């Protein structure tokens, strides 16, 4: 430390007043503080260099990381295949069981019964499948999925797609069997709409409730709603059909449903609305998933 002559800055009068300052000087000299070590200086530099880089480059700096690319169809398929691999066996068995039952009923009891089965069961199967797939137990992976390259929204839709594609393909296979069997009792496009509308509607509802609240509610709410719709339809039938002891009420009901599919524009409208609502709810579920990230 350089000895600083403190008196140099003082006037004659001040010097006289203060007198001997050597003790004060000695004291001041003794107050030493440590210099930074070379590694501390290096550390400081390491922290400052990014600041410098940012200051001198107001434009975003070129990153040595390769920018993310748009997803190839192969990558999408890979992710979809991965979903298939982690879905539990019970999910697949339930779908196959319903399909087998449908085929059996169709050939044994006739086309009307098969159509009734498709229309009544497909939405339940889809809603149940969705709620089951998004149950909390499978969400243990969620955190790890959320930081994957694919992204949470894409994963949600891929998984939903896998579930709906599987359930849909079972109904489609049954309808194909219907067509091949020459049982053309309905116009196919009308049947598809009446089948697809409630299926997407209930699946959307199940997904939204499962993601937003809980998977149990996601199962129960669509189930109750659908049961209500069936009961309402049943009441209509009972009220309108001319009842004789010889008629089988179930056969009448099936025939009534076929007639409705072929003739009722109201039913088609309702199915279309269910389809739109279902798609909207799926989109909302996606929004919910994205919001979770910023929460």
């Amino acid at each position, binding site marked *: *430390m*350089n000895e*600083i002559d*403190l008196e140099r*800055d*003082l006037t004659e009068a*001040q010097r006289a*007043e*203060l*007198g001997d*300052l050597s*003790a*004060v000087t*000695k*004291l*001041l000299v*003794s*107050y030493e*503080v*440590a*210099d*930074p070590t070379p590694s*501390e*200086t290096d550390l*400081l*530099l390491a*922290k*400052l*260099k990014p*600041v*410098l*880089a940012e*200051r*001198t*480059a107001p434009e975003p700096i070129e990153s040595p990381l390769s920018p993310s690319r748009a997803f190839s169809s192969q990558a999408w398929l890979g992710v979809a295949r991965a979903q298939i691999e982690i879905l539990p066996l019970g999910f697949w068995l339930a779908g196959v069981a319903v399909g087998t039952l449908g085929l059996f009923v169709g050939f044994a009891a006739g086309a009307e019964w098969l159509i009734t089965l498709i229309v009544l069961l497909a939405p339940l199967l889809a809603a149940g499948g969705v709620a089951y797939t998004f149950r909390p137990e499978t969400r243990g992976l969620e955190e790890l999925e959320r930081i994957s390259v694919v992204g949470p929204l894409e994963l949600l839709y891929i998984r939903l797609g896998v579930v709906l594609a599987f359930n849909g393909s079972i109904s489609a296979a049954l309808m194909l069997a219907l067509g091949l069997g020459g049982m053309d009792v309905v116009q196919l496009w009308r049947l598809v709409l009446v089948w697809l509308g409630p299926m997407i509607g209930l699946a959307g509802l199940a997904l939204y409730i499962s993601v937003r609240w809980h998977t149990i509610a996601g199962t129960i709410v669509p189930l109750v709603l659908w049961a209500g719709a069936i009961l309402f339809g049943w009441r209509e039938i009972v009220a309108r059909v001319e009842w004789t002891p010889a008629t089988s009420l179930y056969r009448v009901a099936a025939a009534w449903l076929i007639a409705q599919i072929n003739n009722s524009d109201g039913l088609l409208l309702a199915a279309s609305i269910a389809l739109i609502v279902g798609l909207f709810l799926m989109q909302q579920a996606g929004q919910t998933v994205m919001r979770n990230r910023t929460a």
Partner: protein
Amino acid sequence: MQDTDEALYREVRRGSEAALTEIVHRYHAPLLRFLHRLTDNRMSAEDLVQETFTRLIIYRGEPPHNFRTWAYTVARNLARDQFKSAYFRLEESESFEDWDERRPMSAADNSLEETVAAVMQRHEINLLLQQLPAAAHEVLVLRFYHDLSLEQIGAVVGLPLGTVKSRLFNALKTLKTLLHAEITP
């Protein structure tokens, strides 16, 4: 020949890492010592040094005529902001006149030499210095430890030369009074 601080700083503003490295090597130690003495806290001083350099780097106004004075000004103002509540409280609440009546610390040694030795041994010099009003303390630190001229100190603390002179005088007087108070409780 060495580049001047001002020339180096112009290079830093153009983004030169080499110039930044040189500036940091020149100023890390003096600024750290300065802030350490001002705040009496090594960790705060380290944070403040980093913040000082960050400010110097991101500054986009006119480059300073005298880099050294300016660096001390930035460091001093940051310390002042951060420690307004604690360290600079003294400045507002106490005037120099109070110091004559004040009886600081405890000690019963009977010579100035011994007191100085004792204070040094107990590492209490910093405590003694911290008892100075902040305005006097910073002038003393800049003058004694960093060899800034009175004019430069005036630029750093933003005061006219006359006031700087009287603060330095008051600081020395107070310090001497404190030392004597150690001897004659």
